[in-house]
């Protein structure tokens, strides 16, 4: 009722089983989701809860064992290999925990590769690629190879690459997990900015509590099921203190702020559950 926006991603009773030993491991046990155009969604949950499997399902990177994933109302299981490639090339941008830049190519070549697949001419691709690298703050370093860039810079290149063909959905799998806290924050800021400016839907897997601040909705996954879904308006009141807690915690806990973040997250979880339904 509140929103008449179209769903851009919809999952219906999605299950995924992996063969393991003699039996099966059921990583997803029936996921139902609806994600609207332009939303910034965080998928949260402990390790092993099925986040990455879910990410692969909604990105069309793997096939569900059961159930259906719709992207713009198209059941992606019915697409052939060419149509899937087309979808990955033009509709979806991917960002990975381990950056996954092509090691033999420069930053610019990495960003332009999807454009070349989309049939842009070399000149168009280069000028657009330079523009995107400029947007992510790497205008000067376009000639560098991935090994010559820091983790944060590599992730920026990956973000620029994910935007190469003006996708409508960006899927980010733990984009900040391999970065230090400050760099992680910068990356989150950048994603939020691009989400606002370009209206692209962002779906991000994360453990990172600072992602909560920018998300429109948070989908909590536990044991292969959707535990609960929270809209930001439900938790807005807490955001200030959480942000403070996390950042405050970093100074004392030397490296990661992981403990502080976890604490904040636990508190948030408790309060949100009490305050929610």
């Amino acid at each position: 009722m509140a929103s008449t926006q179209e769903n851009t991603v919809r999952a219906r009773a999605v299950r995924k089983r992996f063969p393991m030993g003699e039996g099966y491991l059921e990583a997803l046990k029936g996921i139902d989701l609806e994600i609207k155009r332009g939303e910034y969604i965080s998928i949260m949950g402990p390790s092993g809860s099925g986040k990455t499997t879910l990410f692969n399902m909604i990105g069309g990177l793997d096939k569900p064992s059961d159930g259906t994933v719709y992207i713009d109302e198209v059941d992606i299981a019915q697409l052939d290999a060419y149509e899937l490639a087309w979808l990955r090339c033009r509709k979806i941008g991917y960002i990975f925990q381990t950056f996954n830049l092509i090691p033999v190519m420069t930053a610019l070549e990495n960003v332009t590769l999807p454009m070349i697949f989309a049939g842009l001419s070399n000149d168009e691709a280069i000028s657009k690629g330079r523009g995107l690298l400029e947007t992510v703050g790497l205008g000067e370093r376009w000639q560098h190879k991935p090994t010559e860039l820091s983790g944060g810079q590599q992730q920026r290149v990956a973000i620029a690459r994910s935007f190469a063909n003006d996708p409508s959905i960006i899927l980010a799998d733990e984009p900040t997990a391999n970065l230090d806290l400050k760099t992680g924050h910068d990356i989150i800021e950048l994603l939020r900015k691009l989400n606002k400016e370009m209206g692209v839907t962002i779906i991000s897997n994360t453990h990172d509590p600072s992602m909560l601040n920018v998300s429109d909705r948070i989908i909590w996954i536990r044991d292969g099921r959707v535990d609960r879904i929270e809209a930001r308006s439900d938790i807005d009141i807490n955001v200030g203190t959480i942000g403070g807690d996390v950042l405050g915690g970093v100074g004392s806990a030397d490296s990661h702020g992981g403990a502080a973040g976890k604490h904040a997250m636990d508190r948030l979880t408790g309060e949100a559950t009490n305050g929610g339904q």
Partner: protein
Amino acid sequence: MDEQITHEEAIRRLRTDMKTSSVATPFATALKIAFQSLRIRFWRSIITIAGIFFAIAFLVSVLNSAVVELAVNPDEGSQVSGTGIRFILTLLAAEPRQAWLVTMSLIVCVIGIANAMLMSVTERYKEIGTMKCLGALDIFVIELFLLESGFQGLVGSFAGALIGAGLVLVSALVKHGFAVMGILPWSQMVINILLATVIGLLLTLLGASFPAYRASQMPPADAMRTEV
């Protein structure tokens, strides 16, 4: 409830979009990536090339030794005749000892080359998965690896064939003296060099195509998950 578009309508829309824009398999880009990969992994490529090199050098030396042997000691009743493939076949049929050597050298070629190709493709599953996420078509992935391995195969086989044939020549000179130069069937030896190069190239492409095909068919998630 607002009206939801039907699935048929959504697929129809998507396919209309696809008609106006395609996914390309840019040959120039594949060529560029293939050569950059070879250059960056220089020593790795050298080892692959060396595997092919020795296999083909062995094959050519066996073949050309037989050619030299026949030229120096023409055997009246010999069934071995012709050039190129016919030469190999008659050699296989007529001389058990030579047949054994030729078969061995071919087996060394197949196993050595297949192993080198299998390694060089499987160690890059993650890269393949990433490229597929960026919209690479399956055929692009195959093209990339066939270009890369084709180049390695050509360089390795040709160098191996030349060196193998050179060694046979040197040993013939040492064994039979300089006079042997006059009676050697040069064209037959050159044909063997070219034939061995083609065999090496084909075996390399064959060895690469199976793992490359398998990699290209994998869902990207599986390809990226694979640790080698």
